C-alpha cells in the first residue's frame, strides 16, 4: 500500500472497491487512484477466493479432477468440464461417440446462453436498471431446469467425463429445449427494447472504455471482450473441436471496442448459439453416450493441451503426465485473468462512474480469475 501511495500526485485520492462490493460480482478488490472524478489507475488485488485448484488437481485422478473446474468459472461449468475431458481423451487417444459429441455441443451452447443471459441482467443492473435482471432470470431458469433434469445439478454438473457424458439425455430434453429456444427467440426483441435501444444505456456505454485491437491482442484478451475490438479469436471457428466445423454460425464481431460493442457482441452470440442448437436438436445421432474406458485412467508420459471457447473466452487445460494415474502438473488458462489485466489500461482517463459499466462489459467471474 505504501508503495502505491508513493506513486500518486498531490490531490490524488485512493479508494477501495471490494472485496465485498456488489459491483465487482465477487470478491475482487480494486484499489483505484482518482484525480477528481477521473480514474488514473486501477489495481486489482486477487487472492480472496484462491483455492489452489491447480495444486489440488495434482493429487486427484483423471476422473476426479474434472469436478473442481466447475468451481472456477461456475457460469461455464459445462464448457470447463468439456475441456478437461477433451484433454484427457487426447492423452488416451480416445474417440468420443458421435452422440456424445453432439450432446456436448448442445450443453455447451445452452451454458453459453445461460451465462450471457445472466450477464445481460447483471450488466443492466450495473448501469442502474434493475428490472432486466428478473427478465434474465426467467429465461435462465428454463436452462437450469433442463440441466437439472438431464445432468442432475443446476450449476456444478460434472456431466462431461472422459469418453463422453455421464447420462443419456432425459426423454424430456428435446421438448424442453425446443420450448426454450422458442421462448428466448420471442424474448430477445424484448431485451433489445428494454436495454439495447434505451437512450440512457446507450449514452452510458457508447464510446466509453475503448480497448483497441492492438491492446486486446497484447493483453491476451479473448472471447467477446476481444471480438468487440475486432480480434477474430473464436476458438470454435479458428480451431474447431468436437464437430463445430460442421455447423453454420458466424463469429460475432465488432470493431469499435467500446462498452456498447462488447454488449452487442454478446447479444449476437446468444442468437448464434440459438441457431446452433436449432441445427442440432433434431439431428442427435443414435448410439452410445459414453465410450468404453478402463476403470483407472492412465495417461502416457507427455504433455497435453486443449482449448475451448467458454462464454468468457479461451479456456485451456494443460496436463503434464509422468505416466501415472494422477497428473504431474496441471495448468488452467482462464479467460477472465487475461481480460481483467486489460481493465487498468481501459479505464485510465475514464470517469469513476463508468468504471462499473466497463467492468460489467468485461464479464468477469472472480473464481475463474483467482483459482
Amino acid at each position: 500500500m505504501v508503495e502505491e501511495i508513493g506513486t500518486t500526485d498531490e490531490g490524488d485520492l485512493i479508494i477501495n472497491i471490494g472485496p465485498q462490493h456488489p459491483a465487482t460480482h465477487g470478491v475482487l478488490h480494486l484499489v483505484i487512484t482518482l484525480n477528481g472524478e477521473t480514474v488514473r489507475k486501477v489495481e486489482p488485488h486477487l487472492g480472496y477466493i484462491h483455492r489452489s485448484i491447480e495444486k489440488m488437481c495434482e493429487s486427484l485422478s483423471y476422473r476426479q479432477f474434472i469436478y473442481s473446474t466447475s468451481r472456477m468459472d461456475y457460469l461455464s461449468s459445462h464448457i470447463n468440464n468439456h475441456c478437461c475431458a477433451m484433454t484427457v481423451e487426447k492423452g488416451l487417444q480416445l474417440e468420443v461417440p458421435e452422440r456424445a459429441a453432439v450432446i456436448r455441443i448442445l450443453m455447451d451452447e445452452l451454458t453459453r446462453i445461460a451465462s450471457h443471459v445472466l450477464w445481460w441482467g447483471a450488466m443492466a443492473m450495473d448501469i442502474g436498471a434493475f428490472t432486466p435482471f428478473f427478465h434474465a432470470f426467467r429465461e435462465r431458469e428454463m436452462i437450469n431446469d433442463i440441466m437439472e433434469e438431464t445432468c442432475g445439478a443446476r450449476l456444478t454438473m460434472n456431466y462431461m467425463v472422459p469418453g463422453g457424458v455421464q447420462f443419456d439425455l432425459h426423454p424430456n430434453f428435446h421438448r424442453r429445449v425446443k420450448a426454450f429456444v422458442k421462448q428466448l427467440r420471442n424474448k430477445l426483441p424484448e431485451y433489445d427494447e428494454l436495454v439495447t435501444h434505451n437512450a440512457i444505456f446507450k449514452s452510458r456505454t457508447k464510446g466509453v472504455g475503448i480497448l483497441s485491437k492492438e491492446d486486446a491482442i497484447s493483453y491476451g484478451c479473448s472471447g467477446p471482450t476481444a471480438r468487440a475490438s475486432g480480434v477474430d479469436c473464436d476458438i470454435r471457428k479458428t480451431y474447431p473441436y468436437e464437430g463445430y466445423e460442421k455447423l453454420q454460425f458466424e463469429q460475432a464481431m465488432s470493431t469499435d471496442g467500446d462498452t456498447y460493442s462488447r454488449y452487442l457482441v454478446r447479444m449476437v452470440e446468444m442468437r448464434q448459439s440459438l441457431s446452433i442448437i436449432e441445427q442440432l436438436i433434431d439431428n442427435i445421432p443414435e448410439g452410445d453416450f459414453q465410450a468404453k474406458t478402463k476403470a483407472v485412467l492412465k495417461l502416457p508420459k507427455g504433455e497435453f493441451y486443449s482449448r475451448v471457447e467458454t462464454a468468457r473466452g479461451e479456456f485451456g487445460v494443460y496436463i503434464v503426465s509422468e505416466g501415472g494415474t494422477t497428473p504431474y502438473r496441471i495448468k488452467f488458462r482462464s479467460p477472465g485473468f487475461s481480460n481483467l489485466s486489460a481493465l487498468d489500461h481501459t479505464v485510465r482517463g475514464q470517469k469513476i462512474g463508468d468504471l462499473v459499466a466497463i467492468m460489467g462489459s468485461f464479464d468477469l467471474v472472480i473464481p475463474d480469475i483467482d483459482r
Partner: protein
Amino acid sequence: MFLKDYFNDIAQAVGSLLSGMRRTGYYFTHHKEIITEQYPDNRATLVLPERFRGEVVMPHNGQNEHRCTGCTACELACPNGTIKIVTKFELNAEGKRKKAVDAFVYHLELCTMCNLCIQACPTDAIKMAQSFEHSVYDRSQLTKILNKPESKLQEGVE
C-alpha cells in the same frame, strides 16, 4: 441544424424510454406471466427431477438388507474423502471369514455431489436422493452412517 438534432435526440430518447416502459407496464398488468416460485410455501407440491443429486443414500429392502459389500471402490473414487468404509470380518454360511461393511461413514458436509461414487459402485448399493434441505445446527449432524443398524448384506450380492 444543431437545434433540430438536439430536439431529435430528445424525441428519440423519450421514445426509447417509453417503449421500455410499455414492456414493464405489460408485465405489471399481466399477472399470469409471473413465474416466481413461492418456495417454503410450495414444499408439498415441489417435485425435483429424479436425477437431481442431493445426498448419497443407501437403499435397504424390507428385511433390513443392503447391497454394499464393503469393497471401498466408492471411497477410492471420491475426490475429497467424503466416504470412509469401516470393514469387519464375518463368518459366512460355510464358516469362511469374509469381509463385510461395518460402517459406511458419509460426510455430507464434504460431498460435492459429483456422482463418481455412484458410478464406481459395482453392486449399485448407493444412489442419490433428491433431498436438498441440509441445514442443521451443528456440523457433526452432517456425518451420517448410511448402513442401518443390524443391517446385513443382501443374499446373492457378491
